[in-house]
């Protein structure tokens, strides 16, 4: 390939006192990720996840059936005095929902004028209250960043203790790495003005998580 590439690799190998590429992958702990030291959780993963979402300035609803997502969303809109105009993911957790007929719903990527986005998380991580969002036709990434209000639906079955568990789930169930994996912990924030934390910098001003405990 390029001369730059060749020279960089030559220099690296010279510094490492090696003159040829390695034939086999070097033995490394990452082949045994279970060896990672994992922070101990104070509570069971679901309770811990909910505490940590709150700690990151997010809010949480617990519901018992997928169909309750509509009521939970309605309550959320009411609480914040928001118009029922939503951009939604066509993810299985969301696409079957019977939204009220008078609501304005459109599926697909978010546009500049969309204020409320509803998406689905692949997993929730208890350790830090983090949502794992995978991009795809049924979960466009713009939903996670353009709207002011980001509502995320996640099944309690997908709440795992640590991020390593989410990677394991992903390796087991997703055939190829999606274009974008977003690990989202609370709403957007900045401390660039005199180190004072202000929510809603460029991404969502609010993050609301709806956990389905089925």
């Amino acid at each position, binding site marked *: 390939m390029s001369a730059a590439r060749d020279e960089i690799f030559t220099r690296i190998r010279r510094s490492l006192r090696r003159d040829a590429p390695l034939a086999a992958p070097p033995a490394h702990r990452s082949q045994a*990720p279970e060896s990672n030291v994992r922070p101990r959780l104070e509570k069971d993963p679901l309770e811990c996840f909910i505490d940590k979402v709150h700690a990151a300035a997010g809010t949480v609803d617990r519901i018992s059936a997928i169909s309750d997502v509509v009521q939970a969303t309605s309550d959320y809109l009411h609480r914040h005095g928001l118009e029922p105009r939503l951009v939604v993911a066509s993810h299985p957790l969301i696409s079957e929902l019977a939204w009220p007929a008078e609501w304005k719903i459109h599926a697909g990527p978010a546009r500049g004028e969309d204020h409320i986005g509803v998406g689905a998380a692949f997993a929730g991580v208890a350790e830090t209250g983090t949502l794992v969002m995978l991009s795809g036709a049924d979960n466009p990434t713009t939903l996670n960043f353009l709207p002011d209000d980001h509502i995320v639906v996640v099944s309690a079955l997908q709440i795992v203790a640590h991020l390593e568990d989410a990677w394991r789930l992903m390796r087991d169930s997703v055939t190829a790495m999606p274009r974008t994996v977003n690990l989202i912990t609370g709403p957007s924030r900045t401390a660039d003005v005199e180190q004072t934390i202000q929510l809603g910098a*460029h991404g969502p001003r609010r993050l609301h998580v709806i956990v389905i405990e089925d």
Partner: protein
Amino acid sequence: MQGSTTEFKRQAEAALHDATLQRAMAKAKGGFVDKRRLAVARLPEFAQIRAEAKAIKEHTLAHLDYYLEQFERKVLESGGRVHWARTADEACAAVLAIIGAASKQVLKGKSMVSEEIGLNAAMERAGHTVVETDLGEYIIQLAHEPPSHIIAPAVHKTRDQITDLFQAEHEKYGLTERVTETEDIVNEARQVLRTKFLSADVGITGANFLIAETGSTVIVTNEGNGDLTQILPRTHIVTASIEKVIPSLDDMTVLLRLLARSATGQEMSSYNTLSTGPRRADDLDGPEEFHVVIVDNGRSDMLGNEFHDMLRCIRCGACLNHCPVYGAIGGHAYGWVYPGPMGSVLTPLMIGLENARDLPNACTLNGRCGEVCPMSIPLPDMLRTLRFKEHERKLSKARARGALKAWGLLARRPRLYQVVTALMTAVLGSIGGRAGRFRSLPLASGWTQARDLPAPQGATFQRMWRRRR
């Protein structure tokens, strides 16, 4: 980037007398330190994870060629492209070639490597419009200044200064009202930048990690600007340096446990984003092109030499936040891209010790940077090594070298040492007299300018020791 490292002393002096800067630094002081301390205290496994993180980076560096090739292969497999650059100029040329000849609207997420290679200036020279989207970077771009901190680029600006800047610069968008509250300042920037996000052609981000297992580039942010920067424009370009590569997602997980805690005291930053290739055939959004520009710029030479440990740095900024010198003078006085302890090590290695010889001396060797470094980088030792090299290469002042030589002669001759120190103690003790201190001394005016030298009292330690035995 062009620097002013040779002006360090003058700049530090000016910074100490800059009342506005001192006000801004006083507001920042403590915040980072306290938040980090609490975050570390809440994680009993911190020390174990720190050891684990060091092992991961050491393993990667020892097989750097292997993991870079694996990363490159995975990027290609996912439909992206990889460009290699030996120097800053090559890196800028690679980015410009990707952007193309026609003038484009370019958005940038925060990237210290892009500062290092002087990318914004290169793009502007080529006729492109460049907008920084991280709020801190946006503020300093409006002020035509470089960042003064690696994670809080506008930490040296007071709110009043930001208010003035926004008023002057946002008038052209019809925003004439003076915004003084933090919330309103943030909202105004959000409003101005939102229109730019929706119309840009190219988005450039940095990378906190490159993952060999998947060919992903990773950014760690709080604002979400880095995400809008990369998913809305047609082309996403990542600028990253060779030492950012790590083997796997699980390795990244270990490093993430340290990064946010050490930087801002968060357990996890709001947005950690993995980007792998361009948008897939059935994706509804995301960039159509994905390029990674991998920059060496002197790092391959550090591999295996006495500054090798510096390649473990994950750019958390904890060493800056805990450095009393940085806290007193801020980042600009250092005169180049990377300030504080990590910068005082990196800058001489990147632009030459002869061009940055004051930086390794801008350190009290109090050791706090080394203590808080999540990657256990022995920063004080490396600063000492650089001082040693200055001495060897005769870059230090002749008078200082002469004095050290004289002291060396003396220290290697115990008898003579005892006689001379006994004599000095007696002489200085008697001249110091009743005041017990010197306000000034010949050959030591630099020292006595800011404080008094206590006059020796009584006999030397060795003499007293002998008497007691």
